[in-house]
């Protein structure tokens, strides 16, 4: 029986972690993710979970602790934001290369400098090629649901990869929303028991983690990892179907909104998708065929499925809450372009950078962009491919 509550995004994620009851967590506080681990350590102190909590001196150590615990044989999770994720950088690749299914909540926050604590996607975008699976969440409900599913996805025997669950800093992490919780037992049954394939602590069968792999084998290990990436989409779909059975909530690789017959469309991650959908409703009421695609599984990116879902549109704007400096366009734009590349007939694409450092994304921004798309669809003329919106000057 589900329970409906009012909770913040962080509270919802912490509750999901309590219900999963992982074996080990190593964490270091950083705004706006602090709240998740603060609540979780409360659960540890009050005996609500059996988790071994390791309080470390930095995020680099937090991820190192998680790697050791996961290789040791435990189900492991942690949480971070921004500079914390940046400090974990080196260890992220070790977690994915060793194929350790650690789950980490990323409460998206802008990167310094200039120093800023508010929400944008530059932290997780910087780690998008680190070999971690990335699930993105529009609201507290999705953050809760994705966290629970992340364990099943990462721990799947065909996958065994670490998973990041992203939610927008402050906008979602600290705002109170209505949310449906599953029963503790439902979550426990859903995630099941975790068994590490070759646990380091099985002293009857001694193994070595992290050996030196020279040019005669390194490329074979990379190819094997790439092969695993290609299996993730199917596992995410299967786990989502199982999750729907216990929750009634439907998840796919991405969400489409009014997209099937759309002529103009937005592609946007996380919380801004909610605002965009409201504006799309207004455009639909005026008879304009607008739609939206919101990526959920962002890494590995489901290029084929995304391209297939977008190829019939006339004009698309990809909204990026991070810039990819030197890459010319925002990171999501680059992926969407790639997904449409194979088609001879394809939509005209533009890219808007919005909401950096927690700058509000307002309905009028979506309106402005959709009006521009309607014009582009009519004239087939683009003035600027990439542009910052909601910026002075």
């Amino acid at each position, binding site marked *: 029986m589900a329970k409906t509550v009012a909770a913040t995004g962080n509270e919802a994620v912490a509750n999901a972690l309590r219900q999963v009851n992982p074996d080990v967590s190593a964490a270091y506080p950083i705004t706006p993710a602090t709240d998740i681990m603060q609540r979780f350590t409360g659960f540890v102190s009050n005996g609500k979970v059996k988790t071994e909590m390791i309080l470390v001196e930095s995020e680099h150590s937090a991820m190192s602790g998680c790697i050791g615990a996961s290789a040791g044989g435990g189900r492991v999770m942690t949480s971070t934001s921004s500079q914390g994720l940046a400090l974990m950088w080196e260890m992220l690749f070790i977690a994915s*290369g*060793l*194929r*350790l299914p650690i789950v980490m909540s990323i409460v998206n926050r802008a990167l310094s400098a200039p120093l800023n604590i508010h929400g944008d996607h530059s932290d997780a975008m910087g780690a998008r090629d680190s070999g971690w699976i990335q699930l993105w969440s529009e609201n507290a409900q999705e953050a809760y649901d994705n966290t629970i599913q992340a364990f099943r996805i990462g721990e799947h025997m065909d996958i*065994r990869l670490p998973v990041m669950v992203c939610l927008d800093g402050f906008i979602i992490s600290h705002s109170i929303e209505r949310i449906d919780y599953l029963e503790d037992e439902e979550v426990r049954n859903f995630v099941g028991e975790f068994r590490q*394939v*070759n646990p380091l602590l099985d002293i009857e*069968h*001694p*193994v*070595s*983690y*992290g*050996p030196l*792999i020279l040019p*005669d*084998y390194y*490329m*074979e*290990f990379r*190819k*094997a990892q790439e*092969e*695993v990436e290609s299996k993730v989409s199917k596992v995410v779909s299967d786990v989502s179907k199982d999750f729907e059975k216990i929750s009634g909530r439907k998840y796919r690789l991405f969400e489409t909104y009014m997209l099937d017959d759309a002529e103009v469309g937005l592609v946007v991650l996380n919380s801004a998708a909610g605002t965009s959908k409201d504006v799309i409703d207004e455009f639909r009421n005026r008879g304009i065929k607008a739609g939206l695609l919101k990526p959920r599984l962002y890494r590995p990116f489901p290029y084929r499925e995304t391209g297939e879902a977008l190829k019939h549109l006339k004009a698309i704007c990809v909204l990026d809450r991070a810039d990819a400096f030197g890459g010319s366009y925002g990171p999501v734009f680059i992926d969407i372009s790639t997904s449409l590349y194979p088609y001879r007939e394809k939509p005209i694409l533009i890219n808007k950078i919005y909401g950096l450092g927690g700058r509000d994304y307002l309905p009028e921004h979506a309106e402005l962009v959709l009006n521009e798309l309607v014009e582009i669809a009519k004239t087939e003329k683009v003035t600027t491919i990439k542009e910052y919106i909601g910026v002075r000057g």
Partner: protein
Amino acid sequence: MKLKNWRELTPGAVILEAGNAIEFKTGSWRSFRPIWKEEYCIQCLFCWLYCPDMAINVKDGKRAEFNYDYCKGCGICALECPGKKGNKAIVMIEEGE
């Protein structure tokens, strides 16, 4: 030895067998070679004890010749060797000399 293809590898490069250093010959790394001079050897077996790899052969409890397949030329054996009457039983010479 036939190299495995990418489908035959253990996930995450985990090594499943213990005591596998014997399969990895490190002798080619060596730029200095230890030479054993039996006449100065007091059979203390310090070299065997200190060797970080498995380059010191011992036969019937006695020091035997080096196994150069596993000697990286680190020189620890030569440093630790007490020798006899001021003469080291292990000396390092440059490879190629």
